């Protein structure tokens, strides 16, 4: 599903973020990327939705080589890939319903389809009653649920999560993890970068450890 081959990333300011990374992620897998701040986890995630390009090596999503993607094809890739962040990235002037509907409007779905999909996904993340609230009226956990709903509403094959529980208390963090686990069991590939080792240990999924831009450890589906 995701294939990273001999990838290095050096930013334009000369900072080396990744060195010769090789990683294969299969369809429907759940993979944690762990490691200290600045290790390169976020850069690795950014390469997967083409926010950044590899300086060397290649990144594939299925058979698509992201290095060869022209700028006009990038939006098409993003529609197949849901992304959630620590800082949520919700539109403050749009309601919960509108934030989720927005992801479908940009790809030209009909009003009726958007309405049905949005209400269904808000039901799934447990936010039906807050559909008319603005992000500033929600708790952190609720805001992150809206982001999950927005990321999933177009039924992407891959969900990328960059520290999604970083701003949440333990209860809310577990709420989000249960949601991600459920989505993964339904067939979506999930890649999540995190610091939260208690979550990683309890979830018992595949873990990739990144340190100073290199993969230094790799465990499969067991308590880490």
């Amino acid at each position, binding site marked *: 599903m995701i294939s990273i081959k001999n990838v290095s990333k050096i930013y334009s300011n000369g900072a080396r973020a990744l060195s010769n990374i090789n990683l294969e992620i299969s369809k429907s897998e759940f993979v944690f990327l762990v490691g200290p701040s600045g290790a390169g986890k976020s850069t690795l995630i950014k390469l997967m939705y083409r926010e950044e390009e590899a300086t060397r090596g290649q990144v594939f999503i299925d058979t698509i080589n992201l290095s060869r993607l022209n700028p006009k094809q990038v939006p098409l890739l993003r529609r197949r890939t849901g992304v959630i962040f620590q800082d949520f*990235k919700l*539109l403050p*002037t749009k309601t919960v319903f509108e934030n989720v509907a927005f992801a479908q409007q940009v790809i*030209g779905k009909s009003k009726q389809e958007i309405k049905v999909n949005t209400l269904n996904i808000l039901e799934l993340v447990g936010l039906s009653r807050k559909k008319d609230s603005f992000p500033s009226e929600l708790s952190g956990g609720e805001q992150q649920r809206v982001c999950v709903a927005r990321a999933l509403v177009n039924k992407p094959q891959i969900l990328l999560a960059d520290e999604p529980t970083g701003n949440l208390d333990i209860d809310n963090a577990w709420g989000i993890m249960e949601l991600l686990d459920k989505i993964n069991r339904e067939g979506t590939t999930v890649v999540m970068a995190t610091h939260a080792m208690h979550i990683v240990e309890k979830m018992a999924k595949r873990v990739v450890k990144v340190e100073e831009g290199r993969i230094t450890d790799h465990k499969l589906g067991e308590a880490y």
Partner: protein
Amino acid sequence: MLNQVSFVIVQALVSLKRNIWLTIASILTVMTALILLGGSVFFLANTSNLATSFESQIEIAVFINDNQNREQVIDLRNQIQVMAGVDTVELTAKEDAIIEFQESMGSSSLLEDLGGINPFPDKITVKATDARLVEGIANQIAEINGVDKVRYGQGILEKLIQFTDWLRWIGIAVVAAFAFASFLLITLNIKTNVNSRENEIQIMRLVGASNGLIKWPFFIEGLLLGFIGGIISIGIVGIGYNWLLQYIITTLAFLPVVADQMFMISVFALMLIGGMIMGVLASVFAVRKFLK
């Protein structure tokens, strides 16, 4: 396609409404900028009109030698008429000149008092198409056989042209300065407006919006800001200029003013179209920065 067109339009309108303070600030900025621009164009038109009106009063008086008979005088007039740069030519025969003078003196027996000798020469009054040509035309006429003297206000003419040139340059400088100021005001304001929504643009990209779909709402917003600002500024400049015209016509009637309806409509169209173009360009350029 239709879904996306309606999405883009709704997106632009909702955004204008929900960012209402930014919208009001932008409209006020566009309005102020266009009032400066429109006002300066009217200023230029009037200074230029004033200059032309001063210049149009310059005439060349050509006095004909006494020894020229009527046919020769008419021939002279015809020669002058076809000279390059000559606008109008008017012949005042010596017989008419003395009658005019007599009337202006309130006398009916001047010619008799002078012993029947008419001291007035035949005179041709020439107007040039451009005040700058007057000196050349006058010199050319002076060379013609049969011409006695040529007078055109030597010494004063140069000063007058200097003054009218200066008047025109001030008008142009004022328009250029205000046009530049309006451009800066509008583009900087809209750029700031778009920059403050960088987060929104990033989120649009994240969920897979094409660059076109991101740009179009900003394009429409820029167009609407320019349009609304333009309409308000036209109202203000229109009412203000009409008031000023009425005031000048009733109290300073000797001042020539530009009151041509077509000219006014052209200036208003310039303000509206200029505002809309600046709004759109500023929006699109500002958004482009965020679209890699």
